[in-house]
């Protein structure tokens, strides 16, 4: 398994405030990584740098062999290979669920409409909302919307999936249905980087855990070790508060 994502000495500032400090990270193909940490620790910023929704100022980010830089054309190519799921779903409210899923495959990957629709329906079936395909996002519950958003990202057939706190905006009852979909996806062999506070999910699927605080990676460890025998005091404190 080769490295699919590689971050070297990545630094990023918002004005004078440094959000990312010397981040080094390697992710192999098919690996699942869960990032946790207190709010404001830079976890979201980190994964948003991977598909360049945020720009880093120092260091190197290499995704699937391509170095992220100012070059626009290749960033769109990278983004087409990296799916992202947002906390607020960000479905397109003016389009039906099916159109949400087929839009990018048709216009970015230039697939014929029929093929795109077939892929969309397969993915909607996979997340179990195929019966909602013709509805608009506003007509769906939060959990259904988030599953639709996952399906939309999968329709681009990405190599990597990024999840930015996918269950944080959901009612407690709906968290499980979204996590189930993510677990299923993980078992299917997808490379995943997940920012979440759902430690049950982390224990179930993560190969590695990363704990971040104040813009730094404080601890990176195999999941079992991370929970049973954390090294840093900061990690211990954090875990004692959320477990």
């Amino acid at each position, binding site marked *: 398994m080769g490295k699919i994502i590689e971050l070297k000495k990545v630094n990023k500032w918002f004005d004078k405030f440094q959000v990312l400090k010397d981040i080094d990270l390697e992710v192999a193909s098919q690996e699942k990584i869960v990032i946790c940490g207190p709010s404001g620790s830079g976890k979201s910023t980190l994964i948003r740098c991977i598909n360049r929704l945020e720009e880093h100022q120092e260091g190197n980010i290499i995704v699937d062999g391509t170095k992220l830089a100012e070059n626009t054309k290749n960033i*769109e190519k990278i983004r087409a290979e990296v799916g*992202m799921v947002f906390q*607020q779903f*960000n479905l*397109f409210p*003016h389009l039906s669920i099916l159109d949400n899923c087929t839009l990018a495959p048709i216009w*970015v990957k230039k697939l014929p409409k029929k093929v795109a629709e077939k892929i969309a329906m397969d993915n909607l079936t996979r997340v179990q909302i195929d019966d909602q395909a013709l509805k608009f996002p506003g007509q769906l519950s939060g959990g259904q919307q988030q599953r639709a958003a996952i399906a939309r990202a999968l329709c*681009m057939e990405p190599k990597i999936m990024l999840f930015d706190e996918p269950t944080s905006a959901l009612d407690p009852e709906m968290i499980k249905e979204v996590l189930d979909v993510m677990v299923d996806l993980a078992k299917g062999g997808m490379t995943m980087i997940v920012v979440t506070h759902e430690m049950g999910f982390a224990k179930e699927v993560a190969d590695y855990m990363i704990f971040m605080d104040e813009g730094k990676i404080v601890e990176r460890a195999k999941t079992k070790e991370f929970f049973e025998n954390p090294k840093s005091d900061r990690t211990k404190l954090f875990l004692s508060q959320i477990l």
Partner: protein
Amino acid sequence: MILTYLKPTKDKINTFLPLGSIFVIFAFLDILANTFLNRNITGFLPQTLSFLIPLLFGFVGFYLIRIEFSGIRFLDKLNKNINSSNFNAFLTLLILFIIIKAISPLMNWLILEANFVGSTKDDCTGNGACWVFIKVWFNRLMYGLYPDVEQWRVNSAFILLFALVGIAFFVPQKIKKYFIIFLLFVYPFIGIKLLSGGSFGLVYVETAAWGGLSLTFIISAFAILFCFPIGVFLALGRRSSLPAIRYISIGFIELWRGVPLITVLFMAAVMFPMFLPDGTFIDKLIRVLIAITLFEAAYMAEVVRGGLQALPKGQYEAAKSLGMGYWRMNILIILPQALKLVIPGIANTLLALVKDTPLIFVVGLMELAGMIGLAKTNPKWLGMAMEGYVFAGLVFWIICYAMSRYSQNLEKKLSTER
């Protein structure tokens, strides 16, 4: 004791309802007799009191019938909507009386005492409006100075337009786009050729002769057609991350928004030709059209920008994360939502555009209002300003109301809310 007895309640409904109704009915009888039959029932009273009697009686009557939970649906509805308190009852009465008082002279002037028959000003003998004026000048009000024998060309241009638009509404989705492309890119040339002539055996009619309502339509249609896309580009430009494009857009918008339309038109018609090299000539109507289009585009840009700013950042990020570039993101995701949000603002701008067209009189072009200005100064028809402008107002109102309704329908149709 007496006060509690006077409070209208449900158990005393049999006394209060008839009593109150009598008061209200009397109040309205008085005012109706006064307005329409010229008879003052309460003439025996002092003048001030007689004048206020309907208001007084109506007020007392409304108080007496204000019975809570009367059980009579009509009464409950009435009380809730127009008679919920003493103050509201007073306002209701006042407004109704003013309307009744105003209707009578208005109707007299507009219809009952107006003149419809005849062909000269002397045929207007009544006290009301002289609609003969509109009748005699109707042709000019519609076509301006366009030669009478050639007016079929204007008619057929508009009939063709309306027919195409009408058909476009009903044809299936697949053919629809060809219709729209034809309408936007082919029809304008056919229309212009029909109107101006000069070839295909059509006599040349110079644009200075165009006028009346048809010119209102021509200018509005062209300006709407072009100011919309230009406005969208300017709005995107103003939010662009490229400084050059951003500053050009800001400069353009602020320049045109800062100048009154009347100055812009004057510049286009009088000043602009001076800067052109000798021998080049751009038709005045075209210069005016470009001026109005750019002027309205600046306003349109700001309306559209309002919609762009209202969209959450997440929409941009979601589009980007799916690999869409700038144009795909804007065309497929951002603009459809932003434009839908600002339909009321767009309608506002376009209505203002239509109503701005009369300003072209400053450069000697005369659409509907301009033709009326011309007609009312004709020595044979002096003193017809009121009829003329009431007619123009009515026509503009019909056009604008139709546009307004269309925008409301569009809003409803495009709504994907629950």
